[in-house]
């Protein structure tokens, strides 16, 4: 590990290789017993699991087709969408318009709702049959449930919550970048000798391509023998009473540890309401029990993409910043001029949020009032 710029190899070593890069005289080397396999060559194409809900495509699948298209073009391979469900009419065509070259459909009554046993069996069988090089899934609750089950059955590597995906040109390996160490640093992970290379990506991280109705592609049905694949039985389903919908919010005012308690968050809520926006928080207020986890933005919370994100009293850990990468404009208000949030903001205000925010509310209301007159 690296402490204060110094390499330390001790019992906690995870062979991450950071010390090798750091050493100026190449005194440290990492001697790994790699098991060379040439089998990786027979795997090709980039796959995307197209998650559905009530027979509609979830947005994250289209976003993955966006990045998947780039990866497939670099590798000069096909981009393939995978649809599992009971009624899939029209969905494959939509996936093709968003970039897929081919869509595999497995239609079976057992796949009507997400059930990890049946979904694992269907996806694993198709992967074993077709041998894709890369399989991408949305890091949604169901995607994060399915991906590890499939990866373990295939005995291959899986990287969760990637914020960046690229192809290493020399090797063709998928470079999977994600926040690590509690979201305090970024790590690029590879799966050098196992195929497929599997990764999940959170919603709102990648951008979907606009639909192009002129695109053509192949739609194939896979004859899946439905059997006793289910591991669990779904007894009932009820919609969550969602208090907040941060993913769709246009304007977000967020508070961190500097909000200092529920009263501070109340003040930020007032600013949010004034702007016609929504309140959100970083990890600290949730940990402190000031507010429900639904409001959390960041790697363990929601990924957001508003037009305006105002971060108040948030220091700006990487795990928080990855959640706001998609914001158009980021404003930071913080007393500490050295807070990392300022490096990730478009506009930074060094000052006390308890002094600045009440003034903002008054001034914005005044402008709004003038407009109405």
């Amino acid at each position, binding site marked *: 590990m690296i402490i204060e710029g110094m390499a330390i190899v001790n*019992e906690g070593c995870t062979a991450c290789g950071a010390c090798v890069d750091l050493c100026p005289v190449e005194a440290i080397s990492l001697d790994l017993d790699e098991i060379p396999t040439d089998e990786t060559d027979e795997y090709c194409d980039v796959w995307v699991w197209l998650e559905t809900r009530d027979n509609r495509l979830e947005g994250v699948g289209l976003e993955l087709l966006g990045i998947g298209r780039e990866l497939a073009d670099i590798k000069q391979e096909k981009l393939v969408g995978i649809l599992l469900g009971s009624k899939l009419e029209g969905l494959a065509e939509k996936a093709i318009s968003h970039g897929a070259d081919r869509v595999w459909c497995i239609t079976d009554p057992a796949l009507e709702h997400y059930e990890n046993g049946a979904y694992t069996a269907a996806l694993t069988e198709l992967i074993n049959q077709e041998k894709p090089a890369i399989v991408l899934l949305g890091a949604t609750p169901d995607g*994060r449930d399915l991906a590890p*089950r499939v990866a373990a059955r295939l005995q291959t590597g899986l990287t969760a919550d990637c914020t960046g995906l690229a192809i290493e040109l020399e090797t063709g390996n998928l470079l999977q970048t994600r926040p690590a160490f509690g979201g305090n640093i970024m*790590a690029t992970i590879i799966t050098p000798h196992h195929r497929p290379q599997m990764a999940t990506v959170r919603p709102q991280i990648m951008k979907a391509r606009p639909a192009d109705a002129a695109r053509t592609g192949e739609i194939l049905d896979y004859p899946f023998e439905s059997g006793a694949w289910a591991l669990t039985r779904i007894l009932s389903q009820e919609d969550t009473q969602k208090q907040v919908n941060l993913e769709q919010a246009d304007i977000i005012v967020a508070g961190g540890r500097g909000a200092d308690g529920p009263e501070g968050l109340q003040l930020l809520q007032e600013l949010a309401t004034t702007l016609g926006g929504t309140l959100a928080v970083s990890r600290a207020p949730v940990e402190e029990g000031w507010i429900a986890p639904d409001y959390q933005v960041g790697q*363990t919370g929601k990924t957001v993409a508003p037009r305006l994100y105002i971060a108040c009293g948030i220091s700006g850990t990487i795990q928080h910043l990855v959640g706001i990468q998609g914001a158009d404009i980021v404003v930071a208000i913080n007393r500490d001029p050295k807070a990392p949030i300022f490096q990730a903001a478009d*506009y930074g*205000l060094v000052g006390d949020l308890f002094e*600045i925010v009440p003034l903002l509310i008054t001034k914005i209301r005044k*402008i709004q009032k003038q407009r109405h007159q």
Partner: protein
Amino acid sequence: MRWIVCIKQVPDTTEIRIDSRTNNLVREGIASIMNPYDCHALEAALQLRDQHGGQVTVVTMGPSQAEECLRDALAMGADEAVLLSDPAFRGADTLATSYTLAAAIRRLAPVQLIFCGKQAIDGDTAQVGPELAEWLGLPHIAGVEYLVVKANNITARREAESEYYLVEANLPALVTISRTMNEPRLPSVWGRLRANRTPITVWTGEDLDIDPNRIGLAGSPTRVKRIFYPQHQRQTQIRQGNAEQLSNWLVKTLAEERLL
């Protein structure tokens, strides 16, 4: 009848700061704690044991100091603790970790229900639980926030994207526990005393029926290629001044950006 809880010792990542001068992680004095999600998993197991009887066995894989989190679990009320510790286990990714845990749990059979925290705060992958269930060939239910065990089956509520599912599975099974499920108990003084007297079982690779090619770094399909601090894309304009000046500037800027 055994209730197994898999736990992990993690650095208290909420305490980690970045040195703004060197841009390095400040790790000195960062305490190691039991992964907070695992405290909720342990609490769920303790409650079931108190209702149905049996014993709660906590298992962790890690270096020798991971014993500390096993002592914490014993102090909360676990009956026995197993530490999987071997230099050969080092560098394990989630697949190799779940393989090793599976080998240990087979040795602890028969098992009623296996509990994991939904994810760990250092890696946040949420992968070890479902992968462990797959190695053991057991059903799993992830992100559980309510559960009932009756006779030979479990009914659990899991939160999905925009709905809850009430899911049933036969036992033995594996659940990963959400932090909203319960409030973990605090260790009592008596619990601490008992924990210090309870011997901890230590198993190395030799104690388990395992394939040496599937453990540690050798058994890990994934490799860390590099670690780095991200470069930010934004051109920041920073202002200092009094609240009046700063708020005027921001309101003017937001108006220019047509955000008001």
